[in-house]
């Protein structure tokens, strides 16, 4: 499943809805699906705020790949290359507004990697494994729409 949207904050709810649906379909619990929805929402929000600097007309795509043991979420943008070394969650004891998005992403997914070979922007892959449960999804299934 692939969804392409503009970098509009009001469209983030659509991404959350898709992630919740696909996560439940893949065998994750409601609370796990909610956590995954938040992780993808935070990653997309970071793209809008930081990579695009608040632009609302730039392309943003989410692809969800369902495997027997995991879900993969691929977020693509066309912004300037992200410097991974600068992406750090703030210490939790430092109580101030902001800086928690990266922390939530890291808390809710098992893997987070940038595709260094992706030329036209950034491609971020977030992976969440099912914990010992079978998935109704077919190995490697990935359909395209939108």
């Amino acid at each position: 499943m692939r969804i392409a949207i503009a970098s509009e904050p009001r469209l983030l709810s659509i991404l959350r809805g898709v992630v919740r649906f696909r996560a439940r379909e893949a065998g994750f619990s409601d609370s796990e699906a909610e956590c995954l929805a938040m992780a993808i929402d935070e990653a997309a929000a970071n793209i809008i705020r930081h990579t695009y600097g608040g632009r609302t007309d730039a392309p943003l795509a989410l692809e969800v790949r369902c495997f027997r043991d995991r879900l993969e979420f691929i977020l693509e943008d066309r912004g300037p290359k992200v410097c991974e070394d600068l992406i750090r969650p703030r210490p939790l004891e430092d109580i101030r507004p902001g800086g928690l998005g990266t922390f939530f992403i890291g808390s809710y997914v098992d893997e987070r990697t940038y595709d260094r070979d992706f030329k036209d922007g950034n491609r971020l892959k977030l992976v969440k494994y099912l914990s010992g449960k079978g998935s109704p999804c077919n190995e490697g299934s990935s359909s395209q729409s939108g």
Partner: protein
Amino acid sequence: MKVQVRNLDKVSILDCSGDVDLYTSPRLRESLLAEIRAGGPSVLVNMSGVPYIDSSGIATLVEGLQLSRQTHTPFGLFGLRPNARSVLELARLHKVFAIFENETEAVEKIESTSSGI
């Protein structure tokens, strides 16, 4: 997301309904900071209608907390749904905010809760 303000005798209550995310959190921020700046005796945020809150929403609440400390305005939250509560707990903010189960408890205790300041 909607924010409606109720001004009771000794407390202002912001009733929030809907998701609080990057799109809607500026609305909450505007109302929350305005209420705290207005100098009401106490400010409470009713979270019972908020099924989802992201880091921008959390940041808004932290900003409100900081402003409330500057203005010495007791500030608290009540009616948190499980998702919002778990997010605050994960970020270790559940002991930073004055959090109450419901409106009755919040109104009764907010003024005497030192952690609300």
